[in-house]
């Protein structure tokens, strides 16, 4: 069935397929993950399960996007 919107909706409902960390671990390592990404390093290799959690948790994803944008802006100055 070719239906990207349905696939996206099911993704929101069912979350990531693989193993993931929880919200507490996500907050704990968020600063490290963002700095690794901004340095162009493989953050997921250092912190496995982090990316899957960002896919499954909209609030943590928002926190990640904000920190990355804010720190990225500071580094660009």
């Amino acid at each position, binding site marked *: *069935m*070719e*239906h990207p*919107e*349905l*696939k*996206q*909706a*099911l993704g*929101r*409902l*069912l*979350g990531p*397929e693989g*193993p*993931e*960390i*929880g*919200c*507490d*671990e996500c*907050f704990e*390592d*968020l*600063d*490290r993950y*963002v*700095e690794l990404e901004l340095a162009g390093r493989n953050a997921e290799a*250092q*912190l*496995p*399960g982090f990316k899957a*959690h960002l896919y*499954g*948790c*909209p*609030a943590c994803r*928002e*926190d990640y996007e*904000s*920190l990355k*944008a*804010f*720190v990225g*802006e*500071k580094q660009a100055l």
Partner: protein
Amino acid sequence: MSVASFAAPVELHAALDDESRAWLADLRSRGAAHDDAVGRLHELLLRAARFEVARRRPTLPHLRGNELDDIALEAADDALMSVLARLDDFRGLSRFTTWVYKFGLYEAAAKLRRRAWQGREIPLEPESWGVFETASRGPHEKLEQSELLEAVKDGIETALTPHQREVLVALAVNGVPIDVLAERLETTRGALYKTLHDARRKLREELGPRLEVID
């Protein structure tokens, strides 16, 4: 609380950069140096909180400028308390300022999400199946889609506990922010996500091969 455990290569108490070391020394000192560092820390947190407020401003048209300023200040105040209380948790795996910023951004985001839901009832039953019911291309697809939707509804109804059902429907169907639901149910974001994770796993198992039709 872990949803999954990983043997991550964590390097505890990594070598601190000079700026981070200076921050920690000043914040752990006494007298004028300490007070000055706390003042500078609050400025950093306020900058982060204002950044978050500005990012979300378009989604909060009912809030006036002074209300948003108050929220940013309140977020910076709360974040300052959190940072000072958790100073020993800083492991030096990022710059101290990056570690600090996440507290300011987090407090502001959580306050704004709660503000957006203030006075609103939390929907614990599906409000709409939205895209699950959008038009399909042909009769065969339409049938597959409708069978999948029925299987999803049935799985939610029969495979989950009442608490898992409420949490999954509120968060993943109705889009209630997790910290808003955590506050209403008097629990934590971490505990709620564990429930969501377990509910998703059970539903995925229940749907089994039916999910292959969308792969």
